[in-house]
C-alpha cells in the first residue's frame, strides 16, 4: 500500500513526525477502531481518529440526537437532532475525511451481538455511559483479545486507562472488581458533566489509541489517569494485575459472556 499525493498532503503534519512517518500513516489507514458510544467521549475521539486517517471507524450507539446532547457531543449539531447518533456521527466524520470508512450500528451492545461486532475491528474505545456496558465491553475485549482504551467521566472528573490483558496487563475488573449497586449514586442525567471535560477525555482516548496503533510512547496499560478539571490536576496511579481477578486471573470464574449485564444508567 502506498500513500497518494493528496494523502501525503492531508497528513503531512503528522507524517513529518519521525514517530509516525509514511509507515505509521499506513498503519493508521489499516487500523479498524470501534467506538462504543457516539456521545460525549466518542465525539471528540472519533473526530481526531478520523482526521488522523484511521482507515475504518465503527460507531455503535442506540440513541438519537437530543438537544441536551449538543453541549458536549460535538459530532452532532442542531440540524441532526432526532437523527440516530451513529448516522449523524457518520456524516460529520465523512465530511472531515471522505477517505475513511465509517460504519454505523444503530443498536445497543449486548452479550449476543458484541463478539460478532468485535470481529471486524482491532481496537475498541469505550465511551459508554453505564457500568453494565463497561463490564460487558471489558469482558468481550478480553475474550476477543482486543485492546481497549477506556475513559469515563463524572461532573468535573475524568478517568482513563488502556486495557490489554492479552499483552500481560490488567483488565478493567482488576481495577474495579464489581460495579456499584444500582441507586447508590446519582445517574448520568442527574449528575451533569462539564462539556469541555468530555472533550479532554475523548481526545486523550484518541491520543492513546493512536499511540497503541503506532506502537509509540508509553502505554497507559499499567496506569490509571485521573483528571480533576476544577483543580486542573492530572494524577497517575499504578494499576497492577489482580491475581484474584475473576476474569483474567489464574482461576477465572467468568469464562463467557453469560453473566448479568443488565443495562442501567446508574452509577
Amino acid at each position, binding site marked *: 500500500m502506498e500513500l497518494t499525493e493528496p494523502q501525503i498532503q492531508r497528513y503531512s503534519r503528522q507524517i513529518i513526525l519521525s514517530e509516525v512517518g509514511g509507515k505509521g500513516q499506513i498503519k493508521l489507514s489499516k487500523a479498524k477502531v470501534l467506538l462504543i*458510544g457516539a*456521545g*460525549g*467521549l*466518542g465525539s471528540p475521539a472519533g473526530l481526531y481518529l478520523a482526521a488522523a486517517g484511521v482507515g475504518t471507524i465503527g460507531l455503535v450507539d442506540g440513541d438519537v440526537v437530543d438537544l441536551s446532547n449538543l453541549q458536549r457531543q460535538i459530532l452532532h449539531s442542531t440540524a441532526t437532532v432526532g437523527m440516530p447518533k451513529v448516522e449523524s456521527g457518520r456524516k460529520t466524520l465523512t465530511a472531515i475525511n471522505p477517505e475513511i470508512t465509517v460504519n454505523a450500528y444503530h443498536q445497543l451492545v449486548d452479550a449476543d451481538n458484541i463478539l460478532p461486532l468485535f470481529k471486524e475491528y482491532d481496537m475498541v474505545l*469505550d*465511551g*459508554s*455511559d*453505564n*457500568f453494565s456496558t*463497561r463490564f460487558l465491553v471489558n469482558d468481550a475485549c478480553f475474550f476477543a483479545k482486543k485492546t481497549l482504551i477506556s*475513559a*469515563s*467521566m*463524572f*461532573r*468535573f*472528573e475524568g*478517568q482513563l486507562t488502556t486495557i490489554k490483558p492479552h499483552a500481560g496487563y490488567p483488565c478493567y475488573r482488576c*481495577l*474495579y*472488581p*464489581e*460495579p*456499584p449497586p444500582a441507586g447508590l*449514586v446519582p445517574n*448520568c442525567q442527574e*449528575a451533569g*458533566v462539564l462539556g469541555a471535560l468530555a472533550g479532554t477525555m475523548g481526545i486523550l482516548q484518541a491520543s492513546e489509541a493512536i499511540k497503541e496503533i503506532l506502537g509509540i510512547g508509553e502505554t497507559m496499560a499499567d496506569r*490509571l489517569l*485521573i483528571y*480533576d478539571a*476544577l*483543580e486542573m490536576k492530572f*494524577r*497517575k*496511579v*499504578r*494499576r*497492577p494485575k*489482580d491475581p484474584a481477578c475473576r476474569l483474567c486471573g489464574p482461576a477465572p470464574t467468568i469464562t463467557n459472556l453469560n453473566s448479568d449485564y443488565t443495562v442501567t444508567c446508574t*452509577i
Partner: protein
Amino acid sequence: MIKVRIPTPLRPLTKGQGEVEAQAKSIADMIETLNGSYPGIKDRLCDETGELRRFVNMYVNEEDIRFLKGKETSLKDGDEVSIVPAIAGG
C-alpha cells in the same frame, strides 16, 4: 499529617473540598478520622461489614491499597491518599 484527595461524588460531604488533611496511622484510622470530621463518609467508602466497597479504590501515593495491606496499610507523615471511585459517564 496526610493529604486526602476527595473525588467529585464525595465532595458534598466535605463542603466541596477536593483535598482535606487528616492525622492517621493507617487507612482504617484515616476513615474513622474523616468520618468524625465529615459524618457519613465512612458509609460511602465501606459496606455494612466495614470492608472497603469493591468499586472504590484507595491509593497511598501511587499504590492501590488492595495490593498493599488493604485497610491495614500504614500511613506516614506526608503521604497522599487518593480516593478513586469507579465512574461510568460517557
